[in-house]
């Protein structure tokens, strides 16, 4: 037995490890999803940061270029605006013609040393370079032809990266006479932006990886109580259904999970208990008459006997067989109603008449105790019900009432209420049913008398049948009882 248990345990573990191969564990999955979400978010943030920084840096240059260009344009002599006489500088010493070799040499050194310096270039409307500042030292600023508006862009002057502004110049006739190109070197800014990009690109995977590992660790820690619940639940089998999962200390979801599993176990245990009880009761009810028959007949044939003796025992056996037949009929009826979804054949009938007839049959029944059954209700009362089922319900309830009543008492049947809600009450002054057993009396084979004594002739199926038949006709059955003072069965008929 213990060996068997161990085997099933390792089988389960084996199945678990196979499943793990095909799917991530919960902790890895949590870490994975979390990391993906963070990775997307972080990528967005990094991109945003990079482009914001880039824009801030370039707008700084652009402002500077703007200022420079407007100063140059503002410095032109009013009324003498001509592309040929356009002064490339707001102060004369810096402006120069392209063939001024002295200045070019001087400015060449400046190009290399002075980063704050602006480069200027004047371009004709056809793209021909008219003039350029000496510090360009033979390099030209790239001209974008066809652009009518003011435009900023990154460009190169020789080997130097520059931020460049191109402004169209409008002549006196209102046509574009040429373009003014201004540029500043952006070497530092490019380096800084490059560095920033590198830092972001390198740190990105590092952050993501660290995050994944950390999340997996944290997830593992936070689902450890789940593992404990699983381990506890795995130990619970059919044999120890009474054990429960220990509740975690924190009042959280896991505690709720444990509570839920525990209440599920409670219900399971209940169901198992009921099933066991049912099997045990059914076996008692079926085997007792067989044992009685078998034993009686065996003893009977052991020795030759008088004729009267044989007759008496055979009659007894026939009675036992009747009892068994009745029991099997009841069982089969219950099984049939339960399995095949049999429906009631509802038809309008006089409830009052049916009750009176049922009482009449009870009174004329042979071998009954002499207990009067009184009826109080209207002469006629129409309901919709299945007559055969109704008769069976009345017979079962009345025979129960008679069975458990003392000899000098009465059984009372009262029919009251209007056609909307009819109430039929069967009251006896019998032994009653203890409160704690009241809830189970509709279970098949359940008997208040735990010894299942056959003295009263019951098998515990009567009320189960009543309940089943009543349910099929939408009649509500309820039972009230006080110990030693009697039981009341109420049938509430649905409104028509």
């Amino acid at each position: 037995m213990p060996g068997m248990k161990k085997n099933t345990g390792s089988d389960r573990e084996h199945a678990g490890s196979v499943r793990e191969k095909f799917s991530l564990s919960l902790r890895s999955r949590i870490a994975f999803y979390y990391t993906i979400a963070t990775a997307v978010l972080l990528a967005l943030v990094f991109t945003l940061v990079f482009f914001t920084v880039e824009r801030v840096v370039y707008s700084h240059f652009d402002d500077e270029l703007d200022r420079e260009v407007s100063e140059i344009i503002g410095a032109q002599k009013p009324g003498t605006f001509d592309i040929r006489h356009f002064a490339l500088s707001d102060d004369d010493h810096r402006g120069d013609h392209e063939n001024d070799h002295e200045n070019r040499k001087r400015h060449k050194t400046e190009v290399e040393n002075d980063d704050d310096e602006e480069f200027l270039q004047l371009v004709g409307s056809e793209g021909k370079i008219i003039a350029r500042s000496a510090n360009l030292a033979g390099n030209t600023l790239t001209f974008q032809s066809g652009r009518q508006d003011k435009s900023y862009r990154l460009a190169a002057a020789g080997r130097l990266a520059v931020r460049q502004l191109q402004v169209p110049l409008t002549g006196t006739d209102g046509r574009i006479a040429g373009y003014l190109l201004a540029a500043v070197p952006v070497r530092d800014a490019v380096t800084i932006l490059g560095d920033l990009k590198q830092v972001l690109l390198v740190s990105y995977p590092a952050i993501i990886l660290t995050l994944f590992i950390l999340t997996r660790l944290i997830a593992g820690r936070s689902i450890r109580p789940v593992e404990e619940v699983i381990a506890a639940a795995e130990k619970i089998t059919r044999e120890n259904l009474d054990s429960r999962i220990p509740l975690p200390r924190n009042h959280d979801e896991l505690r709720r999970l444990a509570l839920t599993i525990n209440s599920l176990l409670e219900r399971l245990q209940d169901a198992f208990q009921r099933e066991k009880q049912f099997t045990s009761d059914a076996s008692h009810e079926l085997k007792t008459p067989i044992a009685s028959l078998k034993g009686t007949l065996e003893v009977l044939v052991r020795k030759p006997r008088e004729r009267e003796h044989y007759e008496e025992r055979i009659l007894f056996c026939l009675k036992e067989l009747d009892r068994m037949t009745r029991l099997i009929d009841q069982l089969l009826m219950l099984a049939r109603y339960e399995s095949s979804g049999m429906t009631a054949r509802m038809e309008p009938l006089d409830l009052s008449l049916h009750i009176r007839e049922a009482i009449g049959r009870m009174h004329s029944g042979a071998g009954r105790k002499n207990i009067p059954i009184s009826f109080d209700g209207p002469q006629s009362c129409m309901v919709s019900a299945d007559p055969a089922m109704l008769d069976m319900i009345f017979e079962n309830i009345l025979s129960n009432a008679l069975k458990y009543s003392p000899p000098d008492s009465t059984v009372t049947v009262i029919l009251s209420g209007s056609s909307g809600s009819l109430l039929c009450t069967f009251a006896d002054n019998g032994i009653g049913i203890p409160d704690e057993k009241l809830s189970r009396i509709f279970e098949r084979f359940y008997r208040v008398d735990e010894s299942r004594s056959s003295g009263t002739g019951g098998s515990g199926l009567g009320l189960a049948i009543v309940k089943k038949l009543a349910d099929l006709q939408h009649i509500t059955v309820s039972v009230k009882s006080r110990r030693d003072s009697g039981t009341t069965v109420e049938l509430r008929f649905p409104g028509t």
Partner: protein
Amino acid sequence: MRILVVEDEPGIARFLREGLEEEYFAVDLAFDGKSGLDMALLNEYDLLIVDWMIPGISGIEVCRQVRKAGIDVPLIFLTAKDALEDIVFGLDAGASDYIRKPFAFEELLARIRVQLRRNNPAGDQLTAGRLSVNPATHQVFCGTGEIMLTPKEFSLLEYLVRNKEKVCTRSRIIEHVWDMHFDSDTSVIDVYINFLRKKLDHAGCGNIIQTIRGVGYIIRES
């Protein structure tokens, strides 16, 4: 041998009594746990047959109470329960054996013989000197010659032989050979002893039953 049957099902109780009495047992019946327990504690039985599910006190409780009172009488449970745990539970409660309903009467008799054999390692055959008694077949032999006895005579002889070398008081003989409906007029024992002695004498096993004056009777080997 006197047996108490505690069983609430009248049909079963009746055939048990009838069948066992035909097997020369003295049988008392109890129909509920309370009276069954009282009788088991009050009288000295050679065997108890107890149904598990009986009104009042359950069969298990009867068994426990009997054992608690220090009575080491063989007890056979009789029940429709057949789940493994029920059997184990019943035997652990102190039952000597267990028989499931429905059962064959012959099997019950065999199980009763097993229980009564407990103190008699030789098996079913009881002997005293040349006398041998077989409780299973109800046959008595003196040497090779069979002696025909009535059921009561047989039960009396069986009891004396089972308790050979021990003095059997009149009251104990009454307890074990006659059932509770017998009013304790012990002089009936003397009558049966006389019948027995005559039949034994006739067969050649005379004087095996000795009278202990004012106390009872004894069977000695020699």
